[in-house]
């Protein structure tokens, strides 16, 4: 199963390498990883989605906690949380398909952020399933290029 782990780390060079190297060395499979700063400029937050059973999750958590630059590790898989993924999708759009694509994007509350004579670039945010669903629908028109950020996640409430 997939686990979402939120890791607070020192905002210093080399920290991401330590974490990525830990995952590769111990054979943990990263499904997605996103990193950015937090409200405290000294602290970054990494959201890692890792595939594996409870034993893998336990080891991931414990091994991450051993790193000196890691401040806090939380498994938020089962917490009530807001999950977001951002994707940019470049899709083939000839004059016939264009309006249909725009309708689909509209239903998903996506944005069209670039238009050319034969393609559109669509920006979509949402949880993983929503982005997957749009991707699936656009596939029939022909996806030229697709890029996703990986999941970021925040637990609800105080």
């Amino acid at each position, binding site marked *: 199963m997939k686990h979402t782990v939120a890791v607070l*780390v*020192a905002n210093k060079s*080399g920290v991401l*390498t*330590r974490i990525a*190297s*830990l995952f590769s*060395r111990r054979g943990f499979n990263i499904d997605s990883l996103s990193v950015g700063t937090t409200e405290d400029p000294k602290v970054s937050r990494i959201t890692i989605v890792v595939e594996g059973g409870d*034993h893998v999750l*336990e*080891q991931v958590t*414990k*091994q991450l*906690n*051993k*790193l*000196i*630059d*890691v*401040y806090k590790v939380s498994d938020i898989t089962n917490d009530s949380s807001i999950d977001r993924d951002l994707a940019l999708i470049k899709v083939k759009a000839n004059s016939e398909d264009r309006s249909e694509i725009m309708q689909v994007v509209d239903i998903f509350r996506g944005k069209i952020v670039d238009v050319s004579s034969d393609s559109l670039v669509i920006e979509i945010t949402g949880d993983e399933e929503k982005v997957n669903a749009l991707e699936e629908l656009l596939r029939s028109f022909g996806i030229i290029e697709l890029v996703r950020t990986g999941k970021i996640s925040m637990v609800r409430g105080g």
Partner: protein
Amino acid sequence: MEFTGAEIFVKSLLEEGIEKIFGHPGGAVIPIYDVLYETDIEHVLARHEQGAAHVADGYARSTGRPGVCLATSGPGATNLVTGLATAYMDSVPLVAFTGQVPTGMLGTDAFQEADITGATLPMTKHNYLVQHVEDLSRIIKEAFHIATTGRPGPVLIDIPKDVQMAKTTFEYPAKVELPGYGPTYSGHKLQIKKAAKAIKQAEKPVIYAGGGVVASGAAEELRKLARKAEIPVTTTLMGLGSFSETDDLALEMLGMHGTEYANYAVSETDLLIAVGARFDDRVTGDLETFAKRAKIVHIDIDPAEVSKRVAVDIPIVGDVKNVLQDLNQQVQEQKHSKWRQKIQDWKQKSVISKDKTTKVLTPKFIIEKIDEITDDNTLITTEVGQNQMWAAQYYKYNKPRSFISSGGLGTMGYGFPASLGVQSGNPEATVFCIAGDGSLQMNSQELATAVQHELPINVAILNNSYLGMVRQWQEIFNEKRYASTCLKRRKSCPPNCSGPDSDRNCPEMTPDFVKLAEAYGAVGIRVTKTSEVKSALEKAVASSKPVIIDFVIEREENVFPMVPSGGSLDNMLVGGND
């Protein structure tokens, strides 16, 4: 007043109470060496940086104080890597310093540049690249703190040459601030209570003690627990010495080359109490069958070791010494006479305890003689391979830190340089390095260091002209196809030669270890007969110089008992000598 980075380096080491460092100079550490030239810190010049790291490691393991090594950038730094990995696997407190190209040249593939912090990421507890001289004293303080607290381990500090020369004021921090680092020292009360209850209910308990007992200085607490609740104790290779092997509760070592009685006891126990041990695959063999009837208690300071390989019923995270103290207060006096009788029966049937009368020179005879002629103030180091296992099996270890060996990484070339560090840290002790002829050749250049620094170590080479442990595996698992393990083999040898050499006119051994010793100004002795063993050992111990004794042993002697890799502990090969 302002000081250079190099001066701050030395001042910080003095603040840490460091008296000796082990290293090798080079272009990128000249400023540091220039300051060291006039200080009270003794610099021991190793002949290879790998040697320096192992010397520092031996010093640390035998004294319990952090070992410090120093190397230049690039090749000097990369030569440290094996030493750091060795220390990491066995949780040895080591602080390694490397020089680095100036900060302005970082990343340009400059002369003697290597990304050593990147390279050592997976084999150090933590590491640093110092970018500003203002950070240096704080980083050194943090490094010693990290290396020596919690689960000990090696820390590396990479210092660019311009940082060594830049100036700033010096103030050594009084304490460290590491929000992401805080080892748990006290065990959870409720868990300890549960463990005490489990001990009370157990009929066939066994304690399995590892290197953590040695590291935490908990041998006395371990002895108390074992005696109070009458629990037999087996130790890992790293745990040797944590429980006296002359105690009648001692099962000695378990695992691949453990005693039969330790392995049987672990296979049959109903309560396994793992103390500062990490269920290494050389200990457990097949996980499906390991201690399969037992409830498992695991005491360890590193939470990541708990349930890493074996599911644990009662985990207790904390410093072994603290936890055992608390546990001893709760445990009640107990007797396990039936269980002990059963173990006694196994002991009597054991092959390892049987005396093998022999006319030829065997490792058992030599090591037991070393045991016989040495007193309690003796420290044993080993190389890696058959020599290491024989040293573990036949010498009786009675106190912690008396057995120094590369366990986790199994580093050939470790034991000899380590013995220099052991002797350096324990000038009054008798130090014996039990070595193989293959292993010794991996760092024999440190003979120069031993002679130069007047370290009167004694090296006992168990010379079979084979890379013996691999040869043993080839004999058992590869139909005696001794591929590249015969050190005497030359071009003209027949392709199918796999036998001992008595009638094959093999070339003389290379090197001649007696001449090698003499070439460095050490003493060399060759022993080929059992009758010569005792006098050679006594001569070595009496000498004030380093001595190498080249024991020419039976070539195809094997280490038994043996649990084949991944096999079940109660299914041992005991060899043809029972």
